[in-house]
């Protein structure tokens, strides 16, 4: 019997496919998310838009919040650790969190190195904007990927850019001759073995969810059409006017992402979505997606 194998870690993410993972900050929100049909919740101290507003250093949440949320729901519970923060990650693992997001939403603890995720029993999800970043994270042991998007903005444009970019680069890679892969690895800054694996499979070896800016059911369905395996919704749900209704609508739109009549009816009378931010209005230091190396 073996725990923490690639199959077990990647398999856990496979079971989340076609589903929605929702950010929650307490047990009450976690229950609303589970009731709405979320496949998992991400337990946080603050949702990304509030992290943005609060400024300062954003760290792993108080373990009390994770404990409360784990006790409240039967679905998997994820939590965020700072990039490169070995001890935050080990704390979350020791607490029995089901998945760790090594996340650019928090202030990085290491500006050179990410966690060596292959050393942990708990699986990790990481953000990516292109194939080089995706392959580096897989090389370090990430068992799941997500677009970085631009968290806490309610603006889908960056998640679209990142999903299209990764998928276009995967398509290009799988048409390449084997002899060309090493140079591609050099150009992308990607591990050669991971690129060979992607070429052999004809796809990424782990699931890739959409994240960072999903604010409406239509946004979720858009990301699914662009090839996302599922959707993370951060600030979108509990910053909307009617979270329970909004959450249910996003779950349904993700399941039936090509059924436009259904999505039209789901989108009716939802109340206002979260207030969005135009990306060009963000100062360079406020761009979370540029964190990670």
């Amino acid at each position, binding site marked *: 019997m073996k725990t923490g194998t690639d199959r*077990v870690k990647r398999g856990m993410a496979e079971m989340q496919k076609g589903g929605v993972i929702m950010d929650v900050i307490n047990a009450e929100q976690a229950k609303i998310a589970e009731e709405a*049909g979320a496949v998992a919740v991400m337990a946080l101290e603050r949702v990304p838009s509030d992290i943005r507003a609060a400024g300062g250093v954003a760290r792993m949440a108080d373990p009390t919040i994770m404990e409360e949320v784990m006790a409240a729901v039967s679905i998997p519970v994820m939590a965020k650790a700072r990039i490169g923060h070995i001890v935050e990650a080990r704390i979350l693992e020791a607490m029995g969190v089901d998945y760790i997001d090594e996340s650019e939403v928090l202030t990085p603890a290491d500006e050179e190195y990410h966690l060596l995720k292959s050393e942990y029993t708990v699986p990790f999800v990481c953000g990516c904007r292109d194939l080089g970043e995706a392959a580096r994270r897989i090389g370090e042991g990430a068992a799941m990927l997500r677009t970085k998007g631009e968290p806490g903005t309610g603006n889908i444009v960056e998640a679209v850019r990142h999903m299209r970019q990764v998928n276009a680069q995967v398509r290009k890679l799988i048409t390449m001759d084997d002899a060309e892969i090493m140079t591609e690895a050099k150009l992308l800054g990607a591990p050669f073995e991971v690129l060979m694996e992607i070429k052999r499979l004809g796809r990424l070896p782990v699931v890739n969810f959409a994240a960072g800016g999903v604010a409406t059911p239509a946004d979720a369905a858009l990301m699914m059409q662009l090839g996302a395996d599922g959707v993370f919704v951060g600030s979108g749900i509990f910053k909307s006017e009617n979270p329970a209704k909004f959450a249910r609508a996003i779950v349904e739109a993700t399941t039936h992402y090509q059924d436009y009549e259904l999505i039209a009816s789901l989108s009716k009378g939802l109340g206002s979505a979260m207030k969005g931010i135009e990306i060009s209005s963000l100062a360079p230091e406020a761009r979370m997606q540029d964190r990670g190396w």
Partner: protein
Amino acid sequence: MVKVGVLGLQGAVREHVRAVEASGAEAYVIKWPEELKEMDGLIIPGGESTTMRKLIDKYHFMPELKQFATEGKPIFGTCAGLILLAKEVVGYEEPHIGVMDVRVERNSFGRQRESFEADLDINGVAEDFSAVFIRAPHIVEAGENVEVLAKHNGRIVAAREGQFLGCSFHPELTEDHRLTQFFVKMVAETKEKTTV
């Protein structure tokens, strides 16, 4: 060729489709209840059972799923699918589809860090089956007509009751399709009997 539907509301749908096709049957992703009618057998995949149940209710799948079972057509539930099939779920007053005479406990091996791979001896299927358990349930109690197919550390992890096949683990996550082939054979035999 028999037609096997894979309930496509959430979870490891694509992997089951691949396994069914590799086992010599036609695979269909089932997203709406009326699509069930054409199927000879059904697989309920792994995923989150609470999410699948919400969507089953939302799209009024329940009467059609029960009808499918009443007609004697085979159903195979893996992990979350087993939970949906069971007549009793530990800690819950009501079952979901509630057709297979087993009592199951959710997440009974622990959280994700306790998820594991283990080799199983599956009676009549394989002696060396590499099985992947992810936040897996197990069968606490099996009814008298239930045939126990495999155990891990004394816990029942695969069983068959006539037309129903259930397992705690994820055969769709490996390249070993012997358990899916076993189910496809169940579907073919049932179809043959009903058309004669």
